[in-house]
């Protein structure tokens, strides 16, 4: 038995802690797809998934925030009902929403990089200046929109203008609301970053 035990390579405590938070945030991302907040001025229901993308970058940083969204995508691809409206499957990843989903991953990494300016040393989002916060979130949203709409137009074989009309414009009010909400959360400073 002794030789067997010696060969066990434990994952170190810090990594386990970050990994567990990344996995739970990925599950929260899945739960958020079931929450839609109706907006009086918008025709489409708005889920809170992009909000969780922002929180991933803010509270886990670029590396583990990105890993968290990566876990969410992988779990959805192999059948966890975590994509919008409880969908699952590889097909959702490569279908018309594929660009958005890739955008979620890169968006979390981008927010993490812009806010923390380091791969692993995280600062408290509550102490980030408002312009940096707003700039990071808007940049991530633009990235998500750009990837989303280009892939949508390609896969659906529609004109870019039509894609923007279908896949961006209806969501703008809700996405602005989520940026404001994220800033409100960050500034309250009640969640400890790792």
């Amino acid at each position, binding site marked *: 038995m002794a030789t067997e035990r010696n060969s066990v390579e434990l994952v170190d405590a810090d990594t386990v802690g970050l990994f567990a938070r990344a996995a739970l945030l990925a599950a929260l991302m899945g739960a958020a797809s079931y929450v839609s907040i109706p907006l009086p001025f918008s025709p489409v229901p708005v889920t809170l998934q992009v909000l969780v993308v922002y929180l991933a970058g803010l509270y886990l940083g670029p590396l583990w925030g990105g890993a968290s969204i990566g876990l969410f995508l992988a779990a959805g691809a192999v059948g966890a009902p975590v994509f919008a409206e409880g969908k699952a499957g590889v097909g959702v990843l490569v279908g018309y929403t594929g660009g958005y989903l890739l955008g979620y991953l890169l968006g979390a990494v981008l927010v993490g990089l812009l806010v923390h300016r380091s791969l692993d040393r995280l600062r408290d989002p509550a102490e980030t200046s408002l312009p940096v916060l707003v700039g990071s979130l808007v940049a991530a949203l633009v990235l998500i929109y750009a990837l989303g709409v280009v892939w949508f137009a390609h896969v659906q074989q529609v004109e870019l203008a039509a894609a923007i009309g279908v896949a961006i414009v209806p969501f703008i009010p809700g996405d602005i609301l989520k940026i404001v909400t*994220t800033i409100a959360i960050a500034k309250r400073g009640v969640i400890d970053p790792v």
Partner: protein
Amino acid sequence: MLTYEPDETVAHRLDPRSKLAVQMGFAVAALARISPRALLALSAVAAVALLAARVSLARALYAYRFALVVLAIAPVVSAVTLGSPWIDPAAAVTPALASYRVLLILLVSAAYVRSTPVRDSRAAIQRTVPGKAGQLLGTGVALVFRFLPVLLADVRTIREAVAARLGDERGPVERASRLGVLGLSRAFARADRLSLALQARCFSWNPTLPALAFSRLDAPVLALAAGLAVSPLL
């Protein structure tokens, strides 16, 4: 909702790696061309996939019903023009074919979802993605499956509590930020407890991997996957 269900179908008996390979091959083939002939062939493959996993077409369509709306809108939007003749049906043909191929891709993944338990998916990931990344990815995927119902219940109780205390008179930002703060802090509290439990159970980089073995049944499936993947070159 379409999720894994225990059964004895052909698809259930396949190695998860073969099933993932077929989906990838199928996506490559379907994204490469949308000629009616190609789509006819792909329809046949999708039908076989659904049959093999015993998923009825109606059920698969219902699972992706919200996607169907978007798939229907895309050709309609393309047919609309900003001047006379206002509607140009010819412009809708290509987007309609494109929508159809996306639908086929979704249907094929429905077969995987019904026929593959988490344990198999985790094994496929850990045996395909090398090293530490594969270990964390496989375990992490299993954790997402495990904690999704727990966090859904959290979100539900938080929403009820917020609705009871704040009613509907507060704005959406106030309600969404409460939900965000409480949802994330509960998730992190659970994560911190999970982290202790993982360490207590010797969470390691080099565990015994779940057993997986290709059988004779997998050979034609892998051949199909390869054929689909190279079909754009033909």
